[in-house]
């Protein structure tokens, strides 16, 4: 009898807890928060701690303050890595945005098989990066590249194109692959934005004598500006933190001309076992990414 009373009391208090919006919110949030703490916050803070130590693989080091960070400032490979990362992240985005916009304009037109076509253009984005990059690795092969073979057969070139071995061509090639992979994301995001543009606006403008170009500039662009901005900021953040594409194509070579923060951190932290300095390299990305993330959040809040 007594235990039943306790049970019913327990049930009542649980119900009260679930009924109250504030406590229910916390309960529902807990699993997500727990996952974030274990898989995001813990590695992040561990990374910060490691970057402040002289740890190597297999041995927790001592606290050395900001020495890993200051050491990197005198490292010419790190300077090159920072330059490469900026080029890789910032140069590719305008191309992705412009080509993505073009793709979205084409896809927004009603045509036969538009749904399968829309799905197909997403392929570079959907296929695992490692897999699609392997395809590019073969296309850009220094000896067996089909592009070189074709151009040689046509008599356009005499020697194979050194896509991944020449400093300028190497960084251009990895940017090209990144653009190829990123276009569908912009395309589909902008397409969603385009579909939100009320048709009446276009019709009214057409009646007023606006041609297609004017309608594009004065109606379409202002409407999708927000979507493009969000896609661009997200793309910059992802590209800054990229790793797979470069690792598969060049491993940062030749002579470090394609190293970006992710690959250099990997080389120093895991290959050269200097995990403290590897963490410092990766964390140099943090303030830059934080700026873009804050810009993104500010924009979203304003809207």
């Amino acid at each position: 009898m007594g235990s039943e009373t306790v049970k019913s009391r327990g049930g009542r208090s649980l119900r009260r807890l679930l009924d109250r919006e504030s406590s229910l919110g916390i309960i529902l949030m807990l699993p997500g928060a727990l996952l974030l703490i274990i898989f995001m916050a813990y590695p992040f803070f561990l990374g910060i701690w490691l970057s402040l130590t002289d740890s190597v693989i297999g041995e927790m080091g001592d606290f050395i303050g900001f020495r890993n960070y200051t050491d990197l400032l005198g490292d010419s490979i790190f300077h090159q890595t920072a330059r490469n990362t900026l080029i890789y992240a910032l140069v590719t985005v305008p191309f992705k945005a412009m080509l993505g916009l073009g793709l979205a304009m084409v896809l927004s037109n009603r045509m036969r098989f538009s749904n399968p076509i829309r799905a197909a253009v997403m392929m570079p984005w959907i296929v695992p990066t490692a897999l699609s990059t392997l395809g590019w690795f073969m296309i850009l092969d220094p000896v067996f590249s089909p592009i070189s073979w074709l151009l040689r057969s046509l008599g356009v070139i005499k020697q194979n194109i050194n896509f991944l071995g020449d400093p300028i061509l190497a960084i251009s090639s990895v940017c090209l692959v990144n653009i190829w992979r990123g276009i569908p994301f912009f395309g589909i995001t902008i397409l969603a934005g385009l579909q939100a543009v009320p048709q009446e606006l276009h019709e009214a403008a057409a009646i007023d004598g606006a041609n297609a170009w004017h309608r594009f500039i004065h109606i379409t662009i202002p409407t999708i500006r927000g979507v493009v901005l969000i896609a661009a900021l997200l793309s910059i953040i992802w590209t800054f933190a990229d790793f797979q594409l470069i690792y598969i194509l060049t491993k940062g070579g030749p002579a470090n001309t394609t190293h970006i923060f992710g690959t250099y951190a990997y080389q120093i932290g895991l290959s050269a076992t200097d995990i403290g300095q590897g963490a410092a390299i990766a964390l140099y990305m943090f303030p830059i990414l934080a700026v873009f993330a804050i810009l993104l959040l500010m924009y979203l809040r304003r809207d």
Partner: protein
Amino acid sequence: MKDKKRERRGKISRREFLKAGVVGLGMAAMGGLTEKAFGAPAVIKGTKLTILQGTYFIAPGQDLYKKQALEWGQANGVQVSADFLNWPDLQPKIAAAIQGGGVDIVELWPGWNYLYEKSLVDVTDMAQEFGKRGGGFEPYVLNSAPVKGRFLGIPHGYNNNSINYRISWLKEAGCPNAEDGNKVELTWDQYHAIAKKCKAAGHPFGQALGHSTGDPPGFCYPYMWAHGGMEVSKDGKSIQFNKPEFVDGMRKFIQAWKDGYDETGTSWDDSNNNRAFLSGQIASTVNASSIYFAAKKDKPELAKDIHHMLFPKGPAGRFYWLESRTFAILKNSKNIAGAKEFLKWWFQDKQYGDWWRIQEGYMLQPVKKYYNDPTWFKDPKMSPFREEPKYGINQGYAGPPNQRAALAWSKYIVVDTFAKAVQSGDAKASIEWGAEQLKRIYRV
């Protein structure tokens, strides 16, 4: 009482001894399985053993290793898994295993025994026993495998690496004795003069200079040493990289690169030159004998036209970057006993010998007795490799092999110096860049 029982459990009763004897004799009669079934204590039964190593360019070697490991596992009730990884992926996987566990035995490339010193089990006794049975270790092994006098892995040799060339094309270019690589004696200057003629005839030489762990350092370190360059002095206190004779050697290489090499080599990894050679695109390259083996299997006509020669000499002599790989046990392994038993068994003459011989000279001998093994005399095209250990020195030479040298190797400093030089055409600036990086690494 319990202790007594435990003591008795540890001892073998007469009945058990007889049983084991009968079973043992039976197995020996069935094909010499004695070593496979015995020698491992019952305590490892039911355990798991994970082995991580680099993928083999000689497939039968990999197949045999896997077979041996599984047979040992079955005979001893141990669940063995042997994983083979691409060479550039091996080190990060080992690093992850050291941090996170899950692996028992790892194959270490030269220098890694220094990098992971504190995470490896001391196996000095087992290594010395293997060395003693083999008539002593080769000097290159003694120079590289022990860390501060202790073996942290058992040395199993290193793959051969030398000049692979097309007999007919080098003959056309005027290489003396090209038909027999054992008799070819060249300097680097002569080698590059031949390269120039070959490239003019449409068959350039090929050399990988990308971020890869085999052929790029396999060429760059020996060329540097042959031209008087070295990373650090013998006492490890001063950088000896930016030397006029090395700058001069690099200038010659830059010119040779334009005149005689396939210039896309700056992005080649360990497999590009194999494919280029096998498809008839290049006349000569620095590589292991894997090209020759692949040709023997799939392109016998091409194999007839392939030979190997020792590295050419430079003003400072002839050198090879040669250090031993080792099989090591991770300290965080949950089955150190099983790992030790497996390695003890695998390094027996039968297992190791079978594994070494099936690779037909691809693996260089870690112990002296294999120098006179009939394997070396089966095919005269493999004989040049037999002499390679005589010229082998360690990364970080003239200093000792240590963590700093391994760090410089992992950061591709020497390889990138060469890549920078051929890209920029400026030997001095590239070597100055390399020297600056080495100063940071060696903290001098």
